[in-house]
């Protein structure tokens, strides 16, 4: 029998690009296998995905070498539409792949194209919407769904074709931790019930433990292709490849265990910790708790005060209800919560993008409803999730200068502001470059710089992790940390639990429009039940240390408080 996918010597260069995206890939995936593809930004992961159903070479213009065979048939030999029945492909940009006016039609689009009988189509729509937990949404317009729901709909629309091979390109970036787990459960079900072959691009290691194999791509080459648990134990290789290692694994690696002994999950970690008779030094742990407290006491006056905030959208949906929250100067606050909980709605009140239906939001001295977003250089800067919605100038300099320029500053002052902002994001001296030639992470830096140029007191970021690999995300978070240490108040809305644990000081968990938990990150992350109710999971290292009775927020903290026997 032919393998599901066989790739020989695949190299590809997009038209107009100097560097090839893929350099010589040899890969075979057997029917029913679950393969995870990992790697840094620009490694060629998405290019590999689009070569599986013939988009490369049939849709993109570029130079292709080598051969991709799907169930024995070369992708050069047919149209994309023909391979679509064998290979279901879910793209990273899930918004752009939804184009129908309601959910049922979206799901039916694939089966319609393949001439599936109407009765069968109705059955499939019902079944796949059940699989992705979108029952009852048939008549909704995709544009009105939350990010996570859109992502699940994109998956459903491909599942309805009943492909033998399913390729998901970063399917969980917008999902809350429970939703992430949900996608992998769907995948596991498909594999178990129908022997579907799965090829999934993923950057969060916690989701990949159950895969059969992990392939690491770097600069268009396969660096490693081994069983998943083996690759996950290779902490050094992962770090070199800008892939986040599992936290528990990294902890034991740093404690000096050799590769073969490394545990992967919090449960395995706890067992290993106890077996080795290691213990947590209570005094050292107390010092961490005391440091939290001291930091709490050091904050300045309140910069944002929310009282009894209720927000009702024009369509009647109540997004927030009776929210009370105070943010003090110098805080680093993480706003957490499930998809559609109201996180973004909440922070949009902080700079007046939205107005309270009831209650008050006081920013600095005055209420944000009265600020009307008019005064230049006012207190709150907001970085949107997608930098491409912000950037339009031809040079980085003009982009960052846009705010200061339009508020009528003198040339000298503008230049000073731009330099200051570019220095702050580590883009000094790159003012002449074209933003569209930059990588996603650099564009995000430009977007942050353009907000910093107004010298805001408070900086709000909506999901700073999207589209960044591990190394880039670390760099972005280090940047925020240094801005925070220099006096800025930072508010980050995020689904990425480990960055909240490691970088934020305080956390507010929004659940169904209410603030369900708030406090120091350590306090909040100790309450695993409360987090679970909000569809959240603490990161592995936190679960691991919670189980030992001494919550630690990062591998470094855990390392600091651990004592070996004797």
């Amino acid at each position: 029998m032919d393998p599901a996918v066989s790739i020989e010597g695949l190299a590809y260069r997009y038209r107009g690009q100097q560097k090839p995206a893929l350099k010589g890939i040899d890969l075979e995936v057997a029917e029913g296998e679950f393969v995870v593809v990992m790697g840094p930004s620009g490694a060629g992961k998405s290019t590999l995905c689009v070569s599986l159903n013939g988009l490369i070479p049939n849709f993109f213009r570029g130079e292709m070498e080598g051969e991709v065979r799907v169930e024995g048939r070369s992708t050069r030999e047919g149209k994309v539409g023909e391979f679509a029945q064998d290979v279901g492909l879910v793209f990273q940009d899930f918004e752009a792949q939804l184009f129908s006016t309601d959910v049922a039609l979206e799901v039916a689009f694939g089966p319609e194209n393949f001439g599936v009988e109407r009765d069968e189509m109705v059955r499939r729509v019902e079944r796949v919407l059940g699989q992705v937990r979108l029952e009852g949404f048939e008549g909704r317009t995709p544009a009105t769904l939350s990010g996570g729901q859109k992502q699940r709909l994109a998956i459903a629309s491909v599942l309805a074709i009943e492909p033998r091979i399913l390729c998901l390109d970063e399917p969980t970036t917008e999902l809350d931790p429970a939703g992430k787990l949900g996608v992998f459960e769907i995948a596991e079900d498909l594999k178990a019930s129908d022997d579907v072959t799965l090829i999934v691009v993923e950057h969060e290691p916690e989701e990949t433990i159950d895969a059969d194999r992990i392939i690491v791509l770097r600069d268009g080459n396969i660096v490693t292709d081994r069983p998943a648990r083996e690759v996950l134990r290779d902490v050094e290789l992962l770090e070199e490849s800008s892939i986040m290692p599992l936290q528990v694994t990294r902890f034991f690696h740093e404690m000096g265990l050799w590769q073969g002994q490394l545990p992967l999950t919090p449960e395995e970690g706890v067992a290993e910790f106890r077996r080795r008779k290691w213990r947590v030094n209570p005094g050292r742990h107390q010092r961490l708790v005391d440091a939290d407290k001291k930091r709490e006491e050091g904050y300045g006056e309140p910069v944002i005060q929310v009282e009894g905030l209720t927000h009702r959208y024009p369509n009647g949906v109540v997004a927030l209800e009776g929210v009370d929250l105070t943010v003090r100067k110098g805080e680093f606050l993480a706003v957490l919560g499930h998809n559609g909980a109201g996180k973004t709605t909440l922070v949009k009140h902080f700079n007046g993008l939205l107005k309270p239906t009831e209650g008050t939001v006081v920013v600095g001295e005055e209420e944000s409803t009265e600020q009307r977003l008019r005064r230049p250089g006012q207190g709150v800067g907001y970085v949107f999730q997608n930098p491409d919605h912000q950037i339009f100038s031809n040079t980085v300099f003009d982009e960052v200068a846009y705010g200061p320029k339009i508020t009528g500053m003198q040339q000298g002052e503008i230049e000073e502001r731009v330099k200051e902002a570019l220095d702050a994001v580590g883009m000094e001296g790159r003012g002449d470059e074209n933003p569209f030639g930059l990588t996603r992470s650099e564009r995000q830096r430009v977007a942050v710089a353009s907000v910093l140029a107004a010298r805001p007191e408070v900086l709000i970021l909506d999901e700073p992790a999207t589209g960044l690999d591990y190394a880039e995300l670390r760099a972005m978070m280090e940047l925020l940390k240094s801005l925070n240490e220099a006096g800025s108040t930072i508010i980050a809305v995020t689904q990425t639990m480990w960055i909240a644990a490691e970088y934020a000081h305080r956390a507010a968990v929004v659940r169904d429009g209410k603030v369900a938990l708030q406090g120091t990150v350590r306090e909040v992350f100790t309450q695993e039940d409360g987090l679970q109710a909000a569809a959240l999971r603490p990161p592995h290292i936190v679960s691991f240390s919670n189980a030992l009775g001494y919550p630690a927020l990062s591998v470094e903290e855990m390392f600091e408080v651990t004592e070996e026997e004797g």
Partner: protein
Amino acid sequence: MDPSVYLDRGTFVHRLDPKTKIFLLLGMVALAFVFANPLYLLAVLAIVLFFGYLSQSMANLGRIWPILLAVAIASVILLSVFGGGQTPLFPFVEREALIYGVGIALRLDAIIMAGVIFLSTTRIEEVAVGLVRLGIPYRFAFAVSKVLRLIPTLVATGTTISRAKRARCPDLDSGNIISRNRKRLPLLVLAFVTTARSDKVSSMAMASRGFGAGTGRTYLLHVAMGRRDVLILLVFVLLLAGSIALRVMGYGGPEGS
């Protein structure tokens, strides 16, 4: 933001076969062209509004009133100034030209409103199915539906972008109309670029879901002419025929001819 014009109201107009609605739209346009006299056109407009009321689409008509007003004012002014006539009313303006201008204004507004009602009551997919059932190839029907979708998408993208801009530069709304538009121009370019980029992904996604696979296509939407469709088409054909007869008999023509 929801970029579609469609209002999911489930009125009997919504439930008509899309073919019927395509015919009704064409018939409405024809009706607007039969007459030139403002009084008669007012009646045509009333029929359009009646459909708007029946189909609960008035909210969408409300959304576009500035466009309707602008079209009306422009045609009245342009045609009454540049049009000819015998009876001077104001300097440069003759009575006949003014009436003609008002007539054209009513005609254009009636057509625009009929179009908006059509889109408010017909899903874009239904338009495509309707066209296919009328014998138009699916690819072409799909292209039509894609164009219909493009404009609202552009508007939605533009809104997101201008919000992003406004959040860091609060000054977007100040200044006179010229300087305001100068500030907005780059946003428009960005909206086009972003839409074009996501359009590329949509095309890829469509191909990846079998668009153009070549086999006989089926449709989830169940489309069939019912008794109601036949009835309403019949009434409309009579109305149209009656109107044409009236006009042939010399009623409802342009003033003074």
